[in-house]
Protein backbone atom coordinates (compact mmCIF):
# COMPACT_ATOMS: atom_id res chain seq x y z
CA UNK A 1 0.00 0.00 0.00
CA UNK A 2 1.17 3.50 -0.75
CA UNK A 3 1.40 6.11 1.99
CA UNK A 4 -1.54 7.88 0.36
CA UNK A 5 -3.89 4.92 0.71
CA UNK A 6 -2.64 4.14 4.24
CA UNK A 7 -3.50 7.67 5.37
CA UNK A 8 -6.80 7.58 3.48
CA UNK A 9 -7.84 4.29 5.06
CA UNK A 10 -6.83 5.38 8.56
CA UNK A 11 -8.69 8.71 8.37
CA UNK A 12 -11.85 7.03 7.03
CA UNK A 13 -11.87 4.40 9.79
CA UNK A 14 -11.12 7.06 12.39
CA UNK A 15 -14.05 9.17 11.22
CA UNK A 16 -16.44 6.24 10.88
CA UNK A 17 -15.80 5.42 14.54
CA UNK A 18 -16.82 8.90 15.63
CA UNK A 19 -20.57 8.48 15.78
CA UNK A 20 -21.22 12.00 16.98
CA UNK A 21 -19.60 13.75 14.05
CA UNK A 22 -20.77 11.09 11.65
CA UNK A 23 -24.36 11.59 12.73
CA UNK A 24 -24.19 15.35 12.51
CA UNK A 25 -22.66 15.33 9.05
CA UNK A 26 -24.93 12.66 7.63
CA UNK A 27 -28.13 13.76 9.34
CA UNK A 28 -28.41 16.75 7.03
CA UNK A 29 -28.02 14.44 4.05
CA UNK A 30 -30.86 12.29 5.32
CA UNK A 31 -33.13 14.93 6.82
CA UNK A 32 -32.62 17.52 4.07
CA UNK A 33 -34.66 15.72 1.40
CA UNK A 34 -37.25 14.68 3.97
CA UNK A 35 -37.66 18.24 5.17
CA UNK A 36 -37.77 19.61 1.64
CA UNK A 37 -40.35 17.13 0.40
CA UNK A 38 -42.49 17.63 3.49
CA UNK A 39 -42.39 21.41 3.38
CA UNK A 40 -42.96 21.47 -0.37
CA UNK A 41 -45.97 19.17 -0.18
CA UNK A 42 -47.48 21.28 2.56
CA UNK A 43 -46.91 24.53 0.69
CA UNK A 44 -48.33 23.18 -2.55
CA UNK A 45 -51.42 21.59 -1.05
CA UNK A 46 -52.19 24.65 1.08
CA UNK A 47 -51.33 27.57 -1.16
CA UNK A 48 -52.74 26.13 -4.33
CA UNK A 49 -56.18 25.62 -2.90
CA UNK A 50 -58.14 24.01 -5.66
CA UNK A 51 -60.82 26.42 -6.86
CA UNK A 52 -62.92 23.57 -8.22
CA UNK A 53 -63.24 21.87 -4.86
CA UNK A 54 -66.30 22.56 -2.77
CA UNK A 55 -65.61 25.19 -0.12
CA UNK A 56 -66.55 24.29 3.42
CA UNK A 57 -67.49 26.76 6.16
CA UNK A 58 -70.02 27.35 8.92
CA UNK A 59 -72.70 30.00 9.06
CA UNK A 60 -74.39 31.43 12.13
CA UNK A 61 -77.78 32.92 11.34
CA UNK A 62 -78.75 31.09 8.13
CA UNK A 63 -82.39 31.94 8.76
CA UNK A 64 -81.74 35.66 8.41
CA UNK A 65 -80.67 35.41 4.77
CA UNK A 66 -82.23 32.39 3.01
CA UNK A 67 -81.73 33.77 -0.51
CA UNK A 68 -78.03 34.47 0.19
CA UNK A 69 -77.60 30.91 1.49
CA UNK A 70 -79.20 29.59 -1.70
CA UNK A 71 -76.75 31.68 -3.72
CA UNK A 72 -73.77 30.42 -1.73
CA UNK A 73 -74.89 26.82 -2.10
CA UNK A 74 -75.21 27.34 -5.84
CA UNK A 75 -71.54 28.41 -5.73
CA UNK A 76 -70.38 24.97 -4.60
CA UNK A 77 -70.34 25.69 -0.87
CA UNK A 78 -70.78 23.15 1.86
CA UNK A 79 -72.41 25.15 4.61
CA UNK A 80 -72.46 23.95 8.16
CA UNK A 81 -75.43 25.51 9.91
CA UNK A 82 -74.85 26.54 13.49
CA UNK A 83 -77.96 26.32 15.59
CA UNK A 84 -78.33 29.77 17.17
CA UNK A 85 -80.08 28.23 20.17
CA UNK A 86 -76.93 26.32 21.15
CA UNK A 87 -74.39 28.76 19.86
CA UNK A 88 -72.13 30.57 22.27
CA UNK A 89 -69.84 33.36 21.13
CA UNK A 90 -68.70 32.35 17.58
CA UNK A 91 -65.18 33.61 18.36
CA UNK A 92 -64.94 31.05 21.13
CA UNK A 93 -66.13 28.35 18.73
CA UNK A 94 -63.27 29.20 16.34
CA UNK A 95 -60.66 29.58 19.01
CA UNK A 96 -61.57 26.25 20.54
CA UNK A 97 -61.20 24.65 17.10
CA UNK A 98 -64.81 23.41 16.95
CA UNK A 99 -65.27 25.39 13.72
CA UNK A 100 -62.40 26.83 11.69
CA UNK A 101 -64.37 29.35 9.61
CA UNK A 102 -67.66 30.98 10.60
CA UNK A 103 -69.69 33.57 8.73
CA UNK A 104 -71.95 35.53 11.06
CA UNK A 105 -75.11 36.98 9.48
CA UNK A 106 -76.62 39.74 11.63
CA UNK A 107 -80.13 39.14 12.95
CA UNK A 108 -81.56 42.29 11.39
CA UNK A 109 -80.08 41.53 7.96
CA UNK A 110 -83.53 40.97 6.31
CA UNK A 111 -84.87 44.27 7.61
CA UNK A 112 -81.81 46.30 6.64
CA UNK A 113 -81.71 44.71 3.22
CA UNK A 114 -85.30 45.67 2.60
CA UNK A 115 -84.82 49.23 3.78
CA UNK A 116 -81.63 49.64 1.75
CA UNK A 117 -79.33 49.95 4.77
CA UNK A 118 -75.79 48.67 5.16
CA UNK A 119 -75.58 45.19 6.66
CA UNK A 120 -72.30 43.98 8.24
CA UNK A 121 -71.26 40.34 7.95
CA UNK A 122 -68.37 38.96 9.97
CA UNK A 123 -65.99 36.22 8.89
CA UNK A 124 -64.20 34.62 11.82
CA UNK A 125 -61.10 32.44 11.45
CA UNK A 126 -57.79 31.84 13.19
CA UNK A 127 -54.75 32.51 10.99
CA UNK A 128 -52.39 31.20 13.66
CA UNK A 129 -53.75 27.69 13.14
CA UNK A 130 -52.33 25.49 10.41
CA UNK A 131 -54.81 24.82 7.66
CA UNK A 132 -56.54 26.42 4.74
CA UNK A 133 -58.92 28.68 6.72
CA UNK A 134 -57.29 31.98 5.60
CA UNK A 135 -57.48 31.01 1.93
CA UNK A 136 -61.11 29.88 2.30
CA UNK A 137 -61.95 33.06 4.20
CA UNK A 138 -60.81 35.09 1.18
CA UNK A 139 -62.91 32.94 -1.13
CA UNK A 140 -66.00 33.37 1.07
CA UNK A 141 -65.33 37.11 1.21
CA UNK A 142 -65.20 37.26 -2.60
CA UNK A 143 -68.45 35.32 -2.90
CA UNK A 144 -70.20 37.61 -0.42
CA UNK A 145 -68.92 40.68 -2.24
CA UNK A 146 -70.12 39.31 -5.57
CA UNK A 147 -73.56 38.74 -4.11
CA UNK A 148 -73.56 42.23 -2.59
CA UNK A 149 -72.54 43.78 -5.90
CA UNK A 150 -75.31 41.89 -7.70
CA UNK A 151 -77.89 43.24 -5.24
CA UNK A 152 -76.46 46.75 -5.68
CA UNK A 153 -76.60 46.51 -9.49
CA UNK A 154 -80.21 45.35 -9.33
CA UNK A 155 -81.11 48.29 -7.05
CA UNK A 156 -79.57 50.81 -9.45
CA UNK A 157 -81.25 49.26 -12.46
CA UNK A 158 -84.62 49.42 -10.64
CA UNK A 159 -84.04 53.12 -10.20
CA UNK A 160 -83.08 53.47 -13.85
CA UNK A 161 -79.40 54.22 -13.23
CA UNK A 162 -76.60 52.68 -15.26
CA UNK A 163 -74.63 50.52 -12.78
CA UNK A 164 -71.41 51.40 -14.63
CA UNK A 165 -71.72 54.95 -13.25
CA UNK A 166 -70.62 53.74 -9.86
CA UNK A 167 -67.84 51.59 -11.28
CA UNK A 168 -65.43 53.95 -13.06
CA UNK A 169 -62.72 51.36 -13.52
CA UNK A 170 -61.95 47.70 -13.51
CA UNK A 171 -58.65 45.95 -12.73
CA UNK A 172 -57.54 42.88 -14.56
CA UNK A 173 -54.25 41.33 -13.40
CA UNK A 174 -52.40 38.84 -15.55
CA UNK A 175 -49.64 36.59 -14.10
CA UNK A 176 -47.39 35.60 -16.97
CA UNK A 177 -45.31 33.19 -14.90
CA UNK A 178 -45.59 29.77 -16.43
CA UNK A 179 -45.99 26.79 -14.18
CA UNK A 180 -42.58 25.54 -15.21
CA UNK A 181 -41.06 28.77 -14.01
CA UNK A 182 -42.83 28.43 -10.71
CA UNK A 183 -41.51 24.93 -10.43
CA UNK A 184 -38.03 26.19 -11.27
CA UNK A 185 -38.23 28.50 -8.32
CA UNK A 186 -39.34 25.74 -6.02
CA UNK A 187 -36.85 23.21 -7.32
CA UNK A 188 -34.15 25.89 -7.10
CA UNK A 189 -34.06 25.05 -3.41
CA UNK A 190 -32.84 21.53 -4.12
CA UNK A 191 -29.30 22.58 -5.20
CA UNK A 192 -29.08 24.62 -2.01
CA UNK A 193 -29.65 21.50 0.07
CA UNK A 194 -27.44 19.31 -2.08
CA UNK A 195 -24.48 21.71 -1.94
CA UNK A 196 -24.85 22.29 1.78
CA UNK A 197 -25.11 18.55 2.31
CA UNK A 198 -21.96 17.83 0.33
CA UNK A 199 -19.92 20.44 2.22
CA UNK A 200 -21.38 19.35 5.56
CA UNK A 201 -20.29 15.78 4.90
CA UNK A 202 -16.63 16.77 5.08
CA UNK A 203 -16.97 19.30 7.88
CA UNK A 204 -15.69 17.31 10.85
CA UNK A 205 -13.25 15.15 8.95
CA UNK A 206 -11.53 18.23 7.57
CA UNK A 207 -11.10 19.57 11.10
CA UNK A 208 -10.17 16.23 12.69
CA UNK A 209 -7.43 15.54 10.17
CA UNK A 210 -5.85 18.99 10.48
CA UNK A 211 -6.44 21.24 13.49
CA UNK A 212 -7.69 18.25 15.47
CA UNK A 213 -4.62 16.16 14.72
CA UNK A 214 -2.37 19.05 15.69
CA UNK A 215 -4.27 19.67 18.91
CA UNK A 216 -4.13 16.05 20.03
CA UNK A 217 -0.38 16.05 19.42
CA UNK A 218 -0.20 13.34 16.78
CA UNK A 219 0.72 15.65 13.91
CA UNK A 220 4.37 16.01 14.86
CA UNK A 221 4.99 12.25 15.09
CA UNK A 222 3.14 11.84 11.81
CA UNK A 223 5.29 14.45 10.09
CA UNK A 224 8.40 12.65 11.39
CA UNK A 225 7.53 9.58 9.32
CA UNK A 226 9.41 8.88 6.08
CA UNK A 227 6.44 9.91 3.97
CA UNK A 228 6.17 12.88 1.65
CA UNK A 229 3.97 15.72 2.84
CA UNK A 230 2.11 15.55 -0.45
CA UNK A 231 1.11 11.92 0.18
CA UNK A 232 -0.08 12.80 3.70
CA UNK A 233 -2.13 15.78 2.58
CA UNK A 234 -3.59 13.98 -0.43
CA UNK A 235 -4.62 11.10 1.81
CA UNK A 236 -6.31 13.48 4.22
CA UNK A 237 -8.14 15.40 1.49
CA UNK A 238 -9.16 12.15 -0.19
CA UNK A 239 -10.65 10.93 3.11
CA UNK A 240 -12.62 14.16 3.46
CA UNK A 241 -13.66 13.90 -0.18
CA UNK A 242 -14.90 10.35 0.43
CA UNK A 243 -17.32 11.73 2.97
CA UNK A 244 -18.42 14.78 0.98
CA UNK A 245 -19.15 12.41 -1.91
CA UNK A 246 -20.95 9.97 0.37
CA UNK A 247 -23.04 12.75 1.84
CA UNK A 248 -23.83 13.93 -1.70
CA UNK A 249 -24.84 10.44 -2.77
CA UNK A 250 -27.15 10.03 0.23
CA UNK A 251 -28.66 13.44 -0.41
CA UNK A 252 -29.33 12.68 -4.06
CA UNK A 253 -30.78 9.28 -3.19
CA UNK A 254 -33.08 11.01 -0.73
CA UNK A 255 -34.27 13.50 -3.33
CA UNK A 256 -34.61 10.82 -5.98
CA UNK A 257 -36.92 8.85 -3.70
CA UNK A 258 -38.65 11.88 -2.17
CA UNK A 259 -39.32 14.28 -5.03
CA UNK A 260 -41.96 12.08 -6.71
CA UNK A 261 -44.03 12.57 -3.56
CA UNK A 262 -44.17 16.35 -4.04
CA UNK A 263 -47.57 17.08 -5.66
CA UNK A 264 -46.07 19.08 -8.52
CA UNK A 265 -48.95 17.94 -10.73
CA UNK A 266 -51.20 20.24 -8.72
CA UNK A 267 -49.55 23.19 -10.42
CA UNK A 268 -49.90 21.39 -13.72
CA UNK A 269 -46.34 20.16 -13.84
CA UNK A 270 -45.38 16.71 -15.01
CA UNK A 271 -41.72 16.10 -14.16
CA UNK A 272 -39.91 12.81 -14.43
CA UNK A 273 -37.08 12.49 -11.94
CA UNK A 274 -35.11 9.85 -13.79
CA UNK A 275 -32.14 7.88 -12.59
CA UNK A 276 -29.93 9.01 -15.52
CA UNK A 277 -30.67 12.62 -14.56
CA UNK A 278 -29.59 12.00 -10.99
CA UNK A 279 -26.52 10.14 -12.19
CA UNK A 280 -25.80 13.23 -14.29
CA UNK A 281 -26.07 15.44 -11.22
CA UNK A 282 -23.67 13.17 -9.29
CA UNK A 283 -21.14 13.27 -12.11
CA UNK A 284 -21.51 17.03 -12.37
CA UNK A 285 -20.94 17.40 -8.61
CA UNK A 286 -17.91 15.10 -8.32
CA UNK A 287 -15.28 17.82 -8.94
CA UNK A 288 -17.08 19.95 -6.37
CA UNK A 289 -16.75 17.22 -3.72
CA UNK A 290 -12.96 17.38 -4.12
CA UNK A 291 -13.09 21.18 -4.25
CA UNK A 292 -15.08 21.18 -0.99
CA UNK A 293 -12.69 18.73 0.68
CA UNK A 294 -9.63 20.75 -0.35
CA UNK A 295 -11.21 24.07 0.63
CA UNK A 296 -12.28 22.82 4.06
CA UNK A 297 -8.86 21.23 4.62
CA UNK A 298 -7.01 24.44 3.76
CA UNK A 299 -9.26 26.52 6.02
CA UNK A 300 -8.98 24.06 8.93
CA UNK A 301 -5.20 23.91 8.51
CA UNK A 302 -4.99 27.69 8.81
CA UNK A 303 -6.94 27.65 12.06
CA UNK A 304 -4.89 27.59 15.24
CA UNK A 305 -7.22 25.41 17.29
CA UNK A 306 -10.06 22.92 16.83
CA UNK A 307 -12.56 25.50 18.08
CA UNK A 308 -11.24 28.15 15.72
CA UNK A 309 -11.48 25.71 12.83
CA UNK A 310 -15.11 25.00 13.71
CA UNK A 311 -15.87 28.71 13.63
CA UNK A 312 -14.12 29.25 10.28
CA UNK A 313 -15.78 26.27 8.66
CA UNK A 314 -19.25 27.10 9.92
CA UNK A 315 -19.01 30.32 7.95
CA UNK A 316 -17.24 28.73 5.04
CA UNK A 317 -19.92 26.13 4.33
CA UNK A 318 -22.42 28.96 3.93
CA UNK A 319 -20.35 30.61 1.19
CA UNK A 320 -21.14 28.12 -1.61
CA UNK A 321 -24.85 28.66 -1.01
CA UNK A 322 -24.58 32.42 -1.57
CA UNK A 323 -24.44 32.33 -5.40
CA UNK A 324 -27.63 30.27 -5.38
CA UNK A 325 -29.41 32.84 -3.28
CA UNK A 326 -28.23 35.63 -5.59
CA UNK A 327 -29.34 33.92 -8.76
CA UNK A 328 -32.66 33.10 -7.14
CA UNK A 329 -33.21 36.68 -6.04
CA UNK A 330 -31.93 38.38 -9.15
CA UNK A 331 -33.17 35.79 -11.60
CA UNK A 332 -29.93 35.97 -13.60
CA UNK A 333 -29.74 34.29 -16.97
CA UNK A 334 -27.13 31.56 -17.16
CA UNK A 335 -24.06 32.73 -19.04
CA UNK A 336 -20.77 31.09 -19.84
CA UNK A 337 -18.78 32.88 -17.13
CA UNK A 338 -21.11 31.46 -14.50
CA UNK A 339 -20.00 28.00 -15.55
CA UNK A 340 -16.53 28.94 -14.29
CA UNK A 341 -17.72 29.48 -10.72
CA UNK A 342 -17.87 26.48 -8.38
CA UNK A 343 -21.26 25.92 -6.75
CA UNK A 344 -22.95 28.53 -8.97
CA UNK A 345 -22.45 26.49 -12.13
CA UNK A 346 -23.45 23.27 -10.38
CA UNK A 347 -26.64 24.78 -8.99
CA UNK A 348 -27.70 26.15 -12.40
CA UNK A 349 -26.98 22.88 -14.17
CA UNK A 350 -28.54 20.82 -11.42
CA UNK A 351 -31.78 22.74 -11.81
CA UNK A 352 -31.67 22.00 -15.52
CA UNK A 353 -31.30 18.30 -14.78
CA UNK A 354 -34.18 18.40 -12.30
CA UNK A 355 -36.59 20.21 -14.60
CA UNK A 356 -35.72 18.02 -17.58
CA UNK A 357 -34.52 21.14 -19.31
CA UNK A 358 -32.14 20.96 -22.24
CA UNK A 359 -28.68 20.06 -20.89
CA UNK A 360 -25.84 22.02 -22.47
CA UNK A 361 -23.15 19.38 -22.15
CA UNK A 362 -20.51 21.92 -23.06
CA UNK A 363 -21.53 23.88 -19.96
CA UNK A 364 -21.32 20.71 -17.87
CA UNK A 365 -17.82 20.10 -19.18
CA UNK A 366 -16.71 23.67 -18.50
CA UNK A 367 -18.15 23.54 -15.00
CA UNK A 368 -16.42 20.26 -14.19
CA UNK A 369 -13.09 21.37 -15.62
CA UNK A 370 -13.02 24.78 -13.96
CA UNK A 371 -14.10 23.44 -10.56
CA UNK A 372 -11.60 20.60 -10.93
CA UNK A 373 -8.86 23.08 -11.78
CA UNK A 374 -9.61 25.19 -8.71
CA UNK A 375 -9.72 22.03 -6.60
CA UNK A 376 -6.22 21.14 -7.79
CA UNK A 377 -4.99 24.64 -6.91
CA UNK A 378 -6.46 24.35 -3.42
CA UNK A 379 -4.87 20.92 -3.01
CA UNK A 380 -1.50 22.34 -3.97
CA UNK A 381 -2.03 25.12 -1.45
CA UNK A 382 -2.80 22.53 1.24
CA UNK A 383 0.38 20.59 0.41
CA UNK A 384 2.31 23.83 0.56
CA UNK A 385 0.84 24.68 3.99
CA UNK A 386 1.91 21.27 5.27
CA UNK A 387 5.41 21.78 3.98
CA UNK A 388 5.85 24.81 6.21
CA UNK A 389 7.12 24.65 9.77
CA UNK A 390 4.19 26.71 10.96
CA UNK A 391 1.80 23.84 10.37
CA UNK A 392 2.89 22.49 13.76
CA UNK A 393 1.48 25.66 15.34
Amino acid at each position, binding site marked *: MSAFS*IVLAKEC*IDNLRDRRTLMSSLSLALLGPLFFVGAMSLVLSEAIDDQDDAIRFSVLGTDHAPELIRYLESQNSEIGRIDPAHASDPRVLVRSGEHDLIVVIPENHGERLRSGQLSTFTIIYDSSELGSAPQRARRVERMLETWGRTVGVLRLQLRGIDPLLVQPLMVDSVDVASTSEQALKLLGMVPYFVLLGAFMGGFYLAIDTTAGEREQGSLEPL*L*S*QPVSRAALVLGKIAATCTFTAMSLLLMLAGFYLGLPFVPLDRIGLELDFTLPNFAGIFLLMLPLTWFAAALLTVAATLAKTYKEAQTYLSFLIMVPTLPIVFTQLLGVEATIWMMLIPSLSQSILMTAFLTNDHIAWMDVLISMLSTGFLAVLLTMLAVNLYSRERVLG
Partner: protein
Amino acid sequence: MIVVKGLSKSFGKVTAIDAVSFSASDTRVTALLGPNGAGKSTTLRILAGVLRAGSGTAEIDGHEVHAEPDRVRASIGVLPHASGVYARLTARENVRYFGRLHGLSGESLESRIEALIDQFDMRTFADRRTKGFSQGQRVKVALARALVHNPRHVILDEPTNGLDVMATRALREIILGLRYAGCCVLFSSHIMQEVSNLCDDVIIIAGGRVRFTGDLAQLSDSAGHDDLEEAFVRIAGLDGAQT
Protein backbone atom coordinates in the same frame (compact mmCIF):
# COMPACT_ATOMS: atom_id res chain seq x y z
CA MET B 1 25.70 8.17 15.57
CA ILE B 2 24.12 11.61 15.72
CA VAL B 3 26.37 14.58 14.96
CA VAL B 4 25.19 18.15 15.25
CA LYS B 5 27.42 21.03 14.15
CA GLY B 6 26.81 24.73 14.64
CA LEU B 7 23.06 24.41 14.61
CA SER B 8 21.13 27.69 14.92
CA LYS B 9 17.46 28.45 14.72
CA SER B 10 15.43 31.62 15.22
CA PHE B 11 11.70 32.18 15.36
CA GLY B 12 11.26 35.76 14.28
CA LYS B 13 13.51 37.81 16.55
CA VAL B 14 13.77 35.08 19.17
CA THR B 15 16.88 32.95 18.93
CA ALA B 16 15.94 29.46 20.08
CA ILE B 17 19.34 27.82 19.65
CA ASP B 18 22.67 29.34 18.75
CA ALA B 19 25.58 27.33 17.30
CA VAL B 20 24.69 24.09 19.04
CA SER B 21 27.21 21.29 18.48
CA PHE B 22 27.33 17.81 20.04
CA SER B 23 27.35 14.19 19.16
CA ALA B 24 25.59 11.12 20.50
CA SER B 25 27.16 7.69 20.06
CA ASP B 26 25.69 4.29 19.36
CA THR B 27 25.18 1.91 22.31
CA ARG B 28 25.04 4.90 24.61
CA VAL B 29 22.27 6.92 26.20
CA THR B 30 22.83 10.63 25.79
CA ALA B 31 20.84 13.19 27.73
CA LEU B 32 20.08 16.65 26.48
CA LEU B 33 19.66 18.43 29.77
CA GLY B 34 18.44 21.95 30.23
CA PRO B 35 15.88 24.16 31.93
CA ASN B 36 12.55 24.95 30.27
CA GLY B 37 12.99 27.03 27.15
CA ALA B 38 16.66 26.09 26.76
CA GLY B 39 16.21 24.93 23.17
CA LYS B 40 16.02 21.17 23.74
CA SER B 41 12.82 20.62 21.78
CA THR B 42 13.96 22.86 18.95
CA THR B 43 17.16 20.84 18.60
CA LEU B 44 15.31 17.52 18.63
CA ARG B 45 12.70 18.79 16.17
CA ILE B 46 15.44 19.73 13.73
CA LEU B 47 16.85 16.21 14.08
CA ALA B 48 13.41 14.76 13.41
CA GLY B 49 13.16 16.90 10.30
CA VAL B 50 10.04 18.83 11.24
CA LEU B 51 11.95 22.08 11.67
CA ARG B 52 14.60 23.40 9.32
CA ALA B 53 17.81 24.73 10.83
CA GLY B 54 18.70 28.36 10.17
CA SER B 55 22.33 27.33 9.84
CA GLY B 56 24.58 24.40 10.73
CA THR B 57 24.15 20.72 10.00
CA ALA B 58 22.60 17.73 11.71
CA GLU B 59 23.72 14.31 10.55
CA ILE B 60 22.51 10.87 11.44
CA ASP B 61 24.97 8.16 10.43
CA GLY B 62 26.48 10.65 8.02
CA HIS B 63 23.21 11.61 6.34
CA GLU B 64 22.17 15.23 6.62
CA VAL B 65 18.59 15.46 7.89
CA HIS B 66 17.39 17.97 5.33
CA ALA B 67 19.38 16.69 2.41
CA GLU B 68 17.99 13.14 2.76
CA PRO B 69 14.88 13.57 4.89
CA ASP B 70 13.12 10.29 4.11
CA ARG B 71 16.27 8.21 4.54
CA VAL B 72 16.97 9.85 7.89
CA ARG B 73 13.36 9.54 9.09
CA ALA B 74 13.39 5.85 8.24
CA SER B 75 16.37 5.31 10.55
CA ILE B 76 15.13 7.27 13.55
CA GLY B 77 12.34 6.73 16.03
CA VAL B 78 10.93 9.97 17.42
CA LEU B 79 8.84 10.61 20.49
CA PRO B 80 8.01 14.33 20.28
CA HIS B 81 7.19 16.46 23.28
CA ALA B 82 3.57 15.87 24.39
CA SER B 83 2.99 13.44 21.59
CA GLY B 84 -0.58 12.32 21.26
CA VAL B 85 -2.15 9.15 19.99
CA TYR B 86 -5.33 8.66 17.95
CA ALA B 87 -8.13 8.39 20.48
CA ARG B 88 -10.49 6.40 18.28
CA LEU B 89 -7.90 3.82 17.28
CA THR B 90 -6.80 1.01 19.57
CA ALA B 91 -3.24 0.91 20.89
CA ARG B 92 -2.44 -1.80 18.35
CA GLU B 93 -3.95 0.18 15.48
CA ASN B 94 -1.98 3.26 16.47
CA VAL B 95 1.24 1.30 16.24
CA ARG B 96 0.15 -0.48 13.05
CA TYR B 97 -0.61 2.84 11.29
CA PHE B 98 2.93 4.10 11.77
CA GLY B 99 4.37 0.71 10.91
CA ARG B 100 2.60 0.83 7.59
CA LEU B 101 3.82 4.35 6.93
CA HIS B 102 7.30 2.90 7.35
CA GLY B 103 6.53 0.41 4.63
CA LEU B 104 6.01 -2.57 6.93
CA SER B 105 3.10 -4.89 6.33
CA GLY B 106 1.72 -8.37 6.80
CA GLU B 107 3.21 -10.94 9.12
CA SER B 108 6.44 -9.09 9.81
CA LEU B 109 4.54 -6.02 10.97
CA GLU B 110 2.10 -7.98 13.13
CA SER B 111 4.83 -9.99 14.85
CA ARG B 112 6.79 -6.80 15.48
CA ILE B 113 3.71 -5.23 17.08
CA GLU B 114 3.23 -8.36 19.21
CA ALA B 115 6.83 -8.12 20.37
CA LEU B 116 6.40 -4.45 21.32
CA ILE B 117 3.18 -5.20 23.20
CA ASP B 118 5.03 -7.78 25.28
CA GLN B 119 8.12 -5.66 25.71
CA PHE B 120 6.13 -2.64 26.94
CA ASP B 121 3.71 -4.73 28.99
CA MET B 122 0.73 -3.47 26.99
CA ARG B 123 -1.13 -6.76 26.72
CA THR B 124 -4.10 -5.68 28.87
CA PHE B 125 -4.91 -2.56 26.88
CA ALA B 126 -3.50 -3.34 23.44
CA ASP B 127 -6.90 -3.75 21.81
CA ARG B 128 -8.71 -0.97 23.57
CA ARG B 129 -9.27 2.43 22.01
CA THR B 130 -6.80 4.87 23.50
CA LYS B 131 -9.45 7.37 24.57
CA GLY B 132 -9.33 7.41 28.34
CA PHE B 133 -5.84 5.89 28.61
CA SER B 134 -3.66 7.05 31.46
CA GLN B 135 -0.67 9.23 30.61
CA GLY B 136 1.61 6.25 31.19
CA GLN B 137 -0.36 4.05 28.82
CA ARG B 138 -0.38 6.78 26.20
CA VAL B 139 3.38 7.25 26.41
CA LYS B 140 3.84 3.49 25.98
CA VAL B 141 1.67 3.51 22.86
CA ALA B 142 3.50 6.54 21.48
CA LEU B 143 6.84 4.93 22.21
CA ALA B 144 5.87 1.60 20.66
CA ARG B 145 4.68 3.57 17.64
CA ALA B 146 8.03 5.37 17.42
CA LEU B 147 9.96 2.09 17.62
CA VAL B 148 7.81 -0.08 15.37
CA HIS B 149 10.33 0.04 12.51
CA ASN B 150 13.27 -0.94 14.71
CA PRO B 151 15.12 2.36 14.38
CA ARG B 152 18.86 2.53 15.03
CA HIS B 153 18.47 5.99 16.54
CA VAL B 154 15.88 6.94 19.12
CA ILE B 155 15.06 10.54 19.94
CA LEU B 156 12.83 11.14 22.97
CA ASP B 157 11.65 14.61 23.98
CA GLU B 158 10.98 14.66 27.74
CA PRO B 159 9.54 11.16 27.70
CA THR B 160 8.95 10.99 31.47
CA ASN B 161 6.67 14.03 31.53
CA GLY B 162 3.55 13.23 33.50
CA LEU B 163 4.56 9.66 34.30
CA ASP B 164 4.25 8.17 37.77
CA VAL B 165 7.01 6.21 39.48
CA MET B 166 6.13 2.83 38.03
CA ALA B 167 5.69 4.15 34.53
CA THR B 168 8.99 6.01 34.78
CA ARG B 169 10.69 2.80 35.86
CA ALA B 170 9.18 0.91 32.96
CA LEU B 171 10.38 3.61 30.59
CA ARG B 172 13.88 3.40 32.06
CA GLU B 173 13.92 -0.33 31.40
CA ILE B 174 12.87 0.27 27.83
CA ILE B 175 15.59 2.86 27.26
CA LEU B 176 18.27 0.63 28.75
CA GLY B 177 16.99 -2.20 26.58
CA LEU B 178 17.43 -0.04 23.52
CA ARG B 179 20.99 0.75 24.51
CA TYR B 180 21.87 -2.92 24.90
CA ALA B 181 20.32 -3.54 21.51
CA GLY B 182 22.94 -1.16 20.11
CA CYS B 183 20.81 1.91 19.57
CA CYS B 184 21.87 5.49 19.87
CA VAL B 185 19.42 7.00 22.37
CA LEU B 186 19.12 10.75 22.70
CA PHE B 187 16.60 12.06 25.18
CA SER B 188 15.89 15.43 26.67
CA SER B 189 15.02 16.21 30.23
CA HIS B 190 15.03 19.03 32.74
CA ILE B 191 15.38 16.70 35.73
CA MET B 192 18.92 15.89 36.81
CA GLN B 193 18.01 12.79 38.86
CA GLU B 194 16.38 11.16 35.90
CA VAL B 195 19.47 11.79 33.83
CA SER B 196 21.95 10.49 36.39
CA ASN B 197 20.01 7.25 36.72
CA LEU B 198 19.98 6.51 33.09
CA CYS B 199 22.45 8.20 30.86
CA ASP B 200 26.05 7.71 29.88
CA ASP B 201 26.68 11.13 28.41
CA VAL B 202 25.26 14.53 29.21
CA ILE B 203 24.84 17.64 27.09
CA ILE B 204 23.79 20.66 29.09
CA ILE B 205 22.04 23.33 27.11
CA ALA B 206 20.81 26.66 28.42
CA GLY B 207 19.72 29.83 26.69
CA GLY B 208 20.09 28.12 23.33
CA ARG B 209 23.79 27.36 23.82
CA VAL B 210 25.65 24.20 24.77
CA ARG B 211 27.29 24.65 28.20
CA PHE B 212 28.74 21.23 28.71
CA THR B 213 29.32 17.92 26.96
CA GLY B 214 30.82 14.85 28.58
CA ASP B 215 29.98 11.92 30.79
CA LEU B 216 28.66 12.06 34.35
CA ALA B 217 32.10 11.90 36.00
CA GLN B 218 33.35 14.79 33.90
CA LEU B 219 30.23 16.75 34.85
CA SER B 220 30.90 16.62 38.58
CA ASP B 221 34.61 17.34 37.96
CA SER B 222 33.98 20.38 35.83
CA ALA B 223 31.45 21.90 38.21
CA GLY B 224 33.60 21.08 41.22
CA HIS B 225 30.62 19.56 42.95
CA ASP B 226 29.64 15.99 43.81
CA ASP B 227 25.95 16.77 43.86
CA LEU B 228 25.03 16.42 40.21
CA GLU B 229 21.99 18.63 40.51
CA GLU B 230 24.08 21.37 41.99
CA ALA B 231 26.59 20.88 39.19
CA PHE B 232 23.83 21.18 36.61
CA VAL B 233 22.44 24.35 38.20
CA ARG B 234 25.88 25.93 38.19
CA ILE B 235 26.76 25.00 34.66
CA ALA B 236 23.39 26.04 33.29
CA GLY B 237 23.88 29.37 35.07
CA LEU B 238 20.65 28.91 36.98
CA ASP B 239 22.13 30.01 40.30
CA GLY B 240 22.66 33.56 39.09
CA ALA B 241 20.08 36.02 37.87
CA GLN B 242 17.99 33.29 36.28
CA THR B 243 15.59 31.25 38.37
